């Protein structure tokens, strides 16, 4: 199978939507094996950043590189083929297919035989803790299972880097804890790096080795979770806006 890549870098990323700067010179590095958190208040540019890194948005200037190879001109399909998988906020599981088939499609896509793709699908579903029946169709899955399947499916493409867009949204506390355990184990199990975009600070602080904070399209801070928690700029960015995000400092 394809060999795992070592680093995913974004350099000087700027994105403008008709005069409005969504991102303004962001640098970010995701080494294979690491778990990086990407946080920031609403409108900070997190999703734009994920879109740039997964080929859904071409940067106005700046480059995305995988092991030094520029991928920022690639289509989303080409980007995926160069080892970057992403999950979506809206999960986007194939509702017409069974849980297992959702992952089988991903396995077939990297050239596995149907048998191998099915076996891989079962392994990953078992590993991720999905126990509700692999032959269940995805049109009736509970929300948290839908998210779990979409993460499992992204991993079934055997990516070098997995970008997870708000995987915990809508999950209750117990489900969040299960999810954290899953995410912590992704780098070792799949030999890949994880970038986690998340509003839930408990999840971010619990699993990330480093955290990158965006605010207004710029990098506000990057560092270890302990440093970010105490960073006065970060606290101001979160608590300053309407005071609706008290949990953010926790």
């Amino acid at each position, binding site marked *: 199978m394809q060999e795992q890549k070592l680093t995913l870098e974004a350099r000087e990323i700027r994105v403008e939507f008709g005069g409005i700067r969504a991102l303004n010179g962001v640098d970010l590095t995701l080494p294979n094996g690491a778990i990086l958190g990407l946080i920031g208040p609403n409108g900070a540019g997190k999703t734009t950043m994920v879109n740039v890194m997964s080929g859904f948005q071409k940067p106005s200037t700046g480059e995305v590189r995988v092991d030094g190879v520029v991928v920022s001109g690639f289509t989303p*399909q080409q980007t*995926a083929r160069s080892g970057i998988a992403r999950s979506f906020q*809206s999960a986007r*599981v194939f509702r*017409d*297919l069974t849980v297992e088939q959702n992952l089988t499609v991903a396995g*077939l896509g990297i050239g596995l035989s149907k048998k191998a793709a099915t076996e891989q699908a079962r392994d990953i579903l078992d590993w991720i803790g999905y126990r509700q029946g692999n032959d269940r169709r995805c*049109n009736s899955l509970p929300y948290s299972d839908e998210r779990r399947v979409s993460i499992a499916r992204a991993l079934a493409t055997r990516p070098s880097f997995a970008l997870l867009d708000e995987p915990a949204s809508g999950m209750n506390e117990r489900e969040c804890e299960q999810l954290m355990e899953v995410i912590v184990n992704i780098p070792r199990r799949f030999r890949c790096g994880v970038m986690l975009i998340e509003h839930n600070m408990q999840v971010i602080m619990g699993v990330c080795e480093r955290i990158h904070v965006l605010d207004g399209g710029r990098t506000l801070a990057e560092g270890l979770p302990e440093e970010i928690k105490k960073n006065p700029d970060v606290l101001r960015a979160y608590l300053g806006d309407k005071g609706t995000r008290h949990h953010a400092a926790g």
Partner: protein
Amino acid sequence: MMNFVQVMIDALALGSLYALVALAIGLVFGVMRLVNFAQADYITLGAYSLVVPTASITPPLLFGALSPALMILAVIGMVTMLALMTERIAFRPLRRSDPATLLISSFAVSYFLQSLLTLVHGGRPKAVNIGGALTQPVEFAGIRIPGVQLLTLTVAMTLLVALVLFLKKTPIGIQLRAAAEDFQMARLLGVPANRVIAIAFAISGILAGTISLLFVIQTGLLSIGMGITPVVYAFFATVIGGMGSLGGAVLGGMVVGVASALLQTYLPADLRAFRDAGVFGLVILILLVRPQGLIVTGAAKERV
């Protein structure tokens, strides 16, 4: 009671026929966002391939003169090639354009094929007799069933089952269903776009070829517009079934087919002319109650 069984077999035969056409339209719509109106002309062309191109209204047979097995192969093969060719020439270059452009392109293909047929076969309807023995009624447990209805039902059901197995069990079938539901997501996961689209068109060609044969055996008539009615019905079927849902297309086809056959039988003779109005009324009613169709999938929703 006996009469009712006969009517139900009629209804199911028509329903399964529409289900096949609807499935062809639904598959192509799923992978390309294209409502392919040229589907009607695939059927028509398949039927006309049975006879030698002349201006005569009782033309000599061409594919129709072959042995049954060869005739079936030749007609279905020809229509499948035609479907693949139109995909290659008229639709693939436009794959990235918006659905309206694709729709216009399908009208262009449709008119082109109709004009071509008029040019080489003349515009007048023709009579053709194949499978004459099949029109004999079959007696079964005291019920007389027209052989054609039995044949239609058998062929349609066999094809439906074969297609379902293909879509559920084979790797390309699973990929095709994924692509039909969320094409972009499927591509991200490595589903080969050109291959699944070509397969969808090939299937729509196989279905169109089969339907053209069943039609000609049933009616013995060829006309330039013969494919339009079933395709319009099938289009309604995919809409009420839920655009993008293959199960919905089959269900929708059954609903309009059965409704049409039942209205044909049970409406008072004076009102029978309004059969289609009744079916379309039912379509409107279903859409009022369930605007997304009977079966909702991700394809009908907004895409990220």
